[in-house]
């Protein structure tokens, strides 16, 4: 599981949704990249993600990875944000019966997991119903 440096490096993405955008074709991607996967352009500029979107697909994890044992069962999904960027995240504050493809969500800052009783606390974004 992430070492402090691996966690810290992704903070601008996990805390502030910093993305980037291809100057040539306009594609926005998250996390930021060095080369546009569409047009192979290498001129990129900073961008921020839209913070609202819709759920494209979801599931409920019932057999979780180790650090998520106490959270299971929990919902995870892929949401498409208003700016077209898609990302994966947990869906919380929502009863499982209310999960629906197309449901509007927004990004909220939550604790993703913790490294046992003595390790670092790992924060990031989750989807909450909007």
């Amino acid at each position, binding site marked *: 599981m992430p070492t402090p440096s691996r966690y810290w490096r992704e903070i601008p993405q996990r805390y502030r949704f910093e993305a980037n955008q291809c100057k040539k074709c306009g594609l926005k991607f998250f996390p930021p990249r060095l080369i546009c996967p569409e047009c192979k352009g290498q001129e990129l500029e900073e961008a921020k993600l839209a913070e609202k979107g819709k759920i494209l697909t979801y599931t409920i994890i019932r057999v979780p990875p180790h650090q998520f044992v106490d959270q299971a069962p929990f919902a995870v999904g892929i949401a498409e944000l208003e700016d077209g960027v898609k990302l994966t995240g947990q869906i919380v*504050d929502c009863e499982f019966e209310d999960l629906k493809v197309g449901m509007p969500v927004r990004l909220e800052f939550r*604790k993703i997991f913790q490294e046992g*009783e003595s390790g670092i*606390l790992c924060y990031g974004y989750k989807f909450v119903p909007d």
Partner: protein
Amino acid sequence: MEGIIGYGAYIPRNRIKVEEIAKVWGADAPSYKRGLMLEEKSVPSPDQDTITMSVEASKSALKRAKIDPAEIGAVYVGSESHPYAVKPSGTVLAEALGATPEVHTADFEFACKAGTEGMFVALSLVKAGEVKYGLAVGADTSQGAPGDALEYSAAAGAAAFIFGKENVVAKAIKTYSYMTDTPDFWRREYQYYPQHGGRFTGEPAYFKHIVGAGRGIMEKAGMKPADFKYVIFHQPNGKFPFRVGKMLGFEKAQIEPGWLVNRLGNTYSGSSPMGLTATLDVSQPGDMILIVSYGSGAGSDAFIFEVTERIDEVRDLAPRTRDLLDKNKKYLEYGEYAKFRHKIRKAD
């Protein structure tokens, strides 16, 4: 004049009722409800803590303040349930908001008044011209020992205030602090739950300091209770705010809009600050508001605010405190509550 330029609150959506807790411990729910004037309290989900709630409350405050977060010069989080024993909550908050790296950050603690402490310092820095904007948050996910009286009220929530000199929503007219060394409620290092002095937490603690601060600030400002539209006191249970209000000469109607505890519980460092956000939500330009916090150990911070015209512009730019309190609630049973609050000992 300096004052609040943005404010915001955050309440997790889980609740647990007094009856549900009483059932498990064989206590008499109706008498607890009557005695504490409490129906239910908020419960944080396992993925929520002082830091996450501070971030969301602060984002709401930013929406109302409409400033560039990079210009925030001070970020303070006051809590008695900071997620780390050593590593600030404030750094995560400042990073999440985009206030880093040119910012002063500190974590505050002083039982339930850690929030207003941060407010005092942030406001003072703005007043002194040391920073352009200062952010202070009072947030807690405090615990009550299982079966103890405090378990019925220990709740979770956050309130954030951004202070500045322009586009002020509520002018800071006066501040005053009143403090003595009074061991009414404490937690030693490595202890999981706090301890308290029972009835000693009343008169020599809560009442003495709130009355001291309330009288002190009104004298300093040359004001009397009737001059205020609203007053907010620290809310450890439903009864104390009304009792101390009466002692100071305030009416129920002045206290009620900021009185959240009966359905929120005691959010500790968030308690009076959230009463203030809820009050601002319903206030009108020209209203005078008095807030007096209380932190065990013991002390009270008092502030007098005067609401400006700007309140009408900003009120609905972010969720209202009472909407967070009353809408979209999810009730828990004791088992799930105990799991969420890590009261169940698991294998390593």
